[in-house]
C-alpha cells in the first residue's frame, strides 16, 4: 500500500525501466511539446553516422565470469565472484582543468551533506570543482520541469529514460542540451577510452534526431524485462526441483505449493513477466506483415491474460497481490508468503538476500530458465540498453564540454579500477575498509559515498558482483548466458521517438493497463479487456499505429 524506497539503485533501474517498458511504452518514447511539435525519430543511417566507435578497454580487470555473446547482439555483463585485489589505473594525466560545474541527478538515499570529505576527494582526483546536487528521486519528475521552464538547467543533467515523455527530452536536445556528436561521434570518442568501452547500445539511447546528445550510464550488454523467480530454499525443503518448461508446468507447480491455510500462496501478480513466456512482443509495437500494430492487440497477449486469469481463479494468487497491496522490506516473496514471483533481475542482489535471510535464514532465490507457454523454442525481448542518460548544457563552451567529457571518462572507469573504487566507495580508511569480500563502508562512507551519485552522469558497462553472495552472481550469470541464446531486438529497439501531442493520452494506455490488471487478478473476464481494447483502438489507438507506420516504419527508421 505504501511505496517505500526499498529499491537499490540497480534494482530500481531494471525493475522500473523494464516493467514500464513492458507494460505500456518503450521508456525512450517521448511525448512532445512545441518546437518538436510534429514528432519523429532518427534514421538508421543517421544513427550509424553518429554512433561512437566501440573499443574495449585494454588492460582492464579480467572478470571471473566472462561475457557471453548470444543471439541478435545480446551480450551478458561481466561477472565478479570476488572483489579484485589489484586495482588498475585507467585514467592517466590531468582530468579537469579547474572548471566549476554543477550537476543534478536523482537520488533515492538521504542527501549527503554538501562539501563533505568524499566529494572533496573526488574533486581532488578530477582536478575540477564538480558539485553534484542530488535531488529526491521520488519527486524528480516534478523537480526538473520548473528548472526547464525557468531556463535554469544545470551544466550537467541526468534524465532517467522513463522521464523522457515528462521532460520532453526530444524538445530539449539542441535547444537546451548540447550536441555531443563532434566530440564523441565515430573515432572522436577514442580520446576517452573508458567512454569508448561502453557498449554501442547505450550510446544509441542518447541519439535524438540523428545527433548524439546523451551519455549513457549503467549500460547493459543485454537488458531484459525480468524473469520468473522462485524461492529455491522453500522448494528444496519440500524436495521439489522445478522443471518448468510450459505454462501448464507452471500452473501445476503452483497448485503443488499453494497452501492458503498456512498463509502461503504460489504466485504474486506476474502478468508483465509472463509476457515473455507467452511471446507477447516487448515494447509497445510489432510488425505484422509489414504493418505496425500495438502489442496491446497481439493475440498472445490475450492468451497470457487468460492464463493469468485462470491462476487467479484457481486461488493461486496471494490475496494482497489481487488487492494490489504493495509491501517491501520484506516483500511477500522475501517473507515466504509467495513462492513464485515475476521480477526485474536488478532486484536479485546481495541486499535482497540480506532482507530475505533476516526473514528466514537460508533464503535463496532461483530463476526458471526462459521457457515458452507451449514448450516451443522460447524467445526473450531486449529492453533498451541504458535506462539512464545524462546531458550537458548547451551554454557550455567547447573547452568546457571537453573538460566534462574527460570527467565523464573518469566516472566511466570499470569495476576493479582505482577510479571506480574512489567513485563508488571513497577513500580507504575514511569511507571504507577492505574486508575479505571487498570494501566495507564505514559510517562516514555510508552517509556520503554510498549515494553513488557520480554514476548517474556516466558509468562503465554494468557488471554483476554481490559482496558476500558469490552464488547469486553465479546463478544470475548462468541464467543470462542461457537467456542470451533466445534474445531478440523488438521493433523500435533503442530508438528515441517523439510522438505528437495529440497522441500522448492514447499512448499512455492507462485504461488498457487497468483492464489487463483486472483480468489478470481474476476480477473481470477476458472480454472486459477486449472491450477496453476495442474502445482504445477506435478512440485513437489505431490512429497512433498509423502514425508510427507513416512516420517511423515506412521511413525505414526502425
Amino acid at each position, binding site marked *: 500500500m505504501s511505496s517505500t524506497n526499498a529499491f537499490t539503485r540497480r534494482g530500481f533501474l531494471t525493475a522500473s525501466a523494464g516493467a514500464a517498458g513492458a507494460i505500456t511504452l518503450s521508456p525512450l518514447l517521448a511525448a512532445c*511539446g*512545441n518546437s518538436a511539435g510534429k514528432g519523429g525519430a532518427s534514421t538508421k543511417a543517421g544513427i550509424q553516422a553518429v554512433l561512437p566507435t566501440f573499443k574495449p578497454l585494454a588492460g582492464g580487470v579480467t572478470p571471473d565470469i566472462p561475457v557471453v555473446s548470444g543471439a541478435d547482439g545480446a551480450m551478458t555483463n561481466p561477472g565478479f565472484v570476488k572483489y579484485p585485489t589489484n586495482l588498475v589505473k585507467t585514467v592517466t594525466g590531468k582530468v579537469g582543468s579547474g572548471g566549476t560545474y554543477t550537476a543534478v541527478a536523482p537520488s533515492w538515499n538521504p542527501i549527503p551533506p554538501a562539501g563533505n570529505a568524499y566529494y572533496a576527494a573526488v574533486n581532488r582526483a578530477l582536478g575540477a570543482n564538480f558539485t553534484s546536487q542530488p535531488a529526491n528521486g521520488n519527486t524528480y519528475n516534478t523537480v526538473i520541469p520548473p528548472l526547464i521552464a525557468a531556463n535554469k538547467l544545470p551544466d550537467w543533467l541526468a534524465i532517467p529514460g522513463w522521464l523522457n515523455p515528462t521532460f520532453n527530452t526530444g524538445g*530539449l536536445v539542441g535547444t537546451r542540451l548540447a550536441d555531443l556528436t563532434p566530440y564523441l561521434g565515430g573515432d572522436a570518442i577514442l580520446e576517452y577510452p573508458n567512454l569508448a568501452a561502453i557498449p554501442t547500445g547505450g550510446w544509441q539511447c542518447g541519439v535524438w534526431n540523428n545527433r548524439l546528445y546523451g551519455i549513457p550510464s549503467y549500460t547493459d550488454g543485454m537488458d531484459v524485462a525480468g524473469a520468473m523467480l522462485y524461492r529455491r530454499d522453500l522448494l528444496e525443503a519440500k524436495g521439489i526441483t522445478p522443471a518448468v518448461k510450459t505454462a501448464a508446468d507452471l500452473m501445476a507447480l503452483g497448485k503443488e505449493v499453494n497452501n492458503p491455510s498456512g498463509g502461503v500462496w504460489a504466485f504474486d501478480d506476474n502478468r508483465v513477466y509472463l509476457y515473455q513466456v507467452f511471446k507477447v512482443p516487448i515494447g509497445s509495437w510489432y510488425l505484422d506483415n509489414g504493418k505496425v500494430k500495438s502489442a496491446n492487440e497481439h493475440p498472445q497477449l490475450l492468451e497470457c491474460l487468460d492464463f493469468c486469469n485462470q491462476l487467479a481463479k484457481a486461488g493461486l494468487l496471494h490475496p494482497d497481490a489481487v488487492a494490489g497491496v504493495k509491501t517491501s522490506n520484506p516483500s511477500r516473496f522475501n517473507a515466504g508468503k509467495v513462492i513464485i514471483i515475476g521480477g526485474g533481475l536488478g532486484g536479485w542482489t546481495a541486499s535482497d538476500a540480506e532482507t530475505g535471510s533476516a526473514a528466514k535464514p537460508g533464503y535463496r532465490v532461483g530463476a526458471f530458465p526462459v521457457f515458452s507457454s507451449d514448450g516451443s523454442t522460447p524467445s526473450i525481448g531486449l529492453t533498451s540498453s541504458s535506462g539512464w542518460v545524462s546531458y550537458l548544457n548547451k551554454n557550455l563552451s567547447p573547452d568546457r564540454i571537453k573538460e566534462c567529457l574527460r570527467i565523464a571518462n573518469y566516472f566511466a572507469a570499470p569495476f576493479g579500477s582505482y577510479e571506480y573504487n574512489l567513485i563508488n566507495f571513497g577513500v580507504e580508511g575514511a569511507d571504507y575498509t577492505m574486508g575479505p569480500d571487498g570494501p566495507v563502508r564505514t559510517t562516514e562512507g555510508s552517509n556520503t559515498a554510498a549515494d553513488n551519485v557520480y554514476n548517474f552522469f556516466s558509468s562503465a558497462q554494468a557488471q554483476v558482483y554481490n559482496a558476500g553472495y558469490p552464488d547469486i552472481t553465479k546463478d544470475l550469470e548462468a541464467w543470462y548466458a542461457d537467456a542470451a541464446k533466445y534474445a531478440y531486438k523488438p521493433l523500435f529497439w533503442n530508438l528515441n521517438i517523439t510522438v505528437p501531442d495529440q497522441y500522448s*493520452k492514447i499512448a*499512455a494506455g492507462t485504461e488498457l493497463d*487497468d483492464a489487463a*490488471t483486472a483480468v489478470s*487478478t481474476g476480477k473481470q473476464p477476458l472480454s472486459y479487456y477486449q472491450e477496453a481494447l476495442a474502445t482504445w483502438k477506435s478512440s485513437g489507438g489505431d490512429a497512433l499505429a498509423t502514425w508510427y507506420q507513416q512516420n517511423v516504419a515506412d521511413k525505414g527508421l526502425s
Partner: protein
Amino acid sequence: MAVMAEGPAVPEEARPKSEAPSRERRSQKGTEPIPADRRRLNFRARLRRDRSLIIMITPVVLLLLVFNYLPMFGTVSAFEYYDPIYGFFHSNFIGFKNFTDLFGDANFWHAFQNTLVLSLVQLVLYFPIPIFLAILLNTVISTKLRSFIQAVVYLPHFFSWVLVITIFNQMLGGAGLLNQFLRRHHMATWNIMSNGGMFKYLITFQAVWKEAGWGIIVFLAALAAIDPALYESAAVDGASRWRRTWHITLPGMRGMIVLMLVLRLGNALNVGFEQMLLQRQAVGPQHAEVLDTFAYYYGIGNGNFGYGAAAGLFKGVISLILIYAANKAAHRLGEDGLYRK
C-alpha cells in the same frame, strides 16, 4: 478543486445577539438591519477600529490568495496541450479539445457516475451518524466517562488513510485475520477488501470508523448552546425523553445540521481521493474510479496535465452549482445556510 473545505463553523448561538439581530426581530421592529453607528463612521475610522481584526485575518487571506486563488489561473492549462517546458504561456492552445475528448470518454462518465453513487451512499449512511453519536454522548452525565468516550472516538481521525486501510486489510483482507481464521476452520472465506459490489459500503464503513467521531464536535457545540431550562420545563410538564429529543434537541441542532448538509453537498464530488487511490486496484477502476482518481491517473499520472485539469475544472463547476443550489434550498426552508440572507 474543492470549492469549499469543511469550513470552521461558528455555531449561530455562540454569536452575541447584539451584533447579528435575527430576521424575526428585524421584521418585528421594522428597523434598519445595519446598526446606525456603523454607517456614520468613515473608512479610516472603521479601519482604525477594526485594526486588530484585520491584522489577524491578513495571513489567512494571503494564504487563500496564494494557495487557492493564484492556482486558479492554472486552469488555463485545461485549454492547452500543457507542457511544463513551455509553461502556461507558450504551450499549444487547443480551445475546448480537452473537454470534447473528456465528454467523449466513457471512462470519464464512468468515474462521474461512481462519484455520484459513492457520494449518495455516503450521504445516506454516513451523514446521520455523527448526529446520533452527538445526541447519545450528550446524554452521558459523567464528565469523566464523556471525555474518555470523546478521546476514543476522536483518535481514528488522526490516523492516515494508509494506516487505516492497512489495518482494514490486516483484519478483513483476503490474507487477513478474519479469512485466515475461516480458512483454518474450513469455512468459506469472505474477502471484503477486493469485492467490487461491497466497495461502496466498505468505504463508507471506513469513513465512519475514521471520521464520524471527529464529526460530532460541531454538533456537540450546537447541543451545548441549547438552554437546559427548556429540558427542565419540558420534564416538569411530563415530556418523555423521546419527546424532549424530538421537540427540543433536534430543533436546537437544526441550523447546524442544515449548514453541515449544505457544506457536504458542496463537497459531494469529493469522495475521498486518498481512500480511492489506495484501494483502486483492490476492486478495480470500474468500482473505485472517481473524478479525482481519474484526473490523477489520466492527467498527472501520464503527463497529460491539460486533460486532468479539464476533468478537475468540470468537477469544480459542478461543485459550485451544487453548493449554490443547496444554499438556495436552505434559504427557502428558512435556514441560514452558508450565510444569512
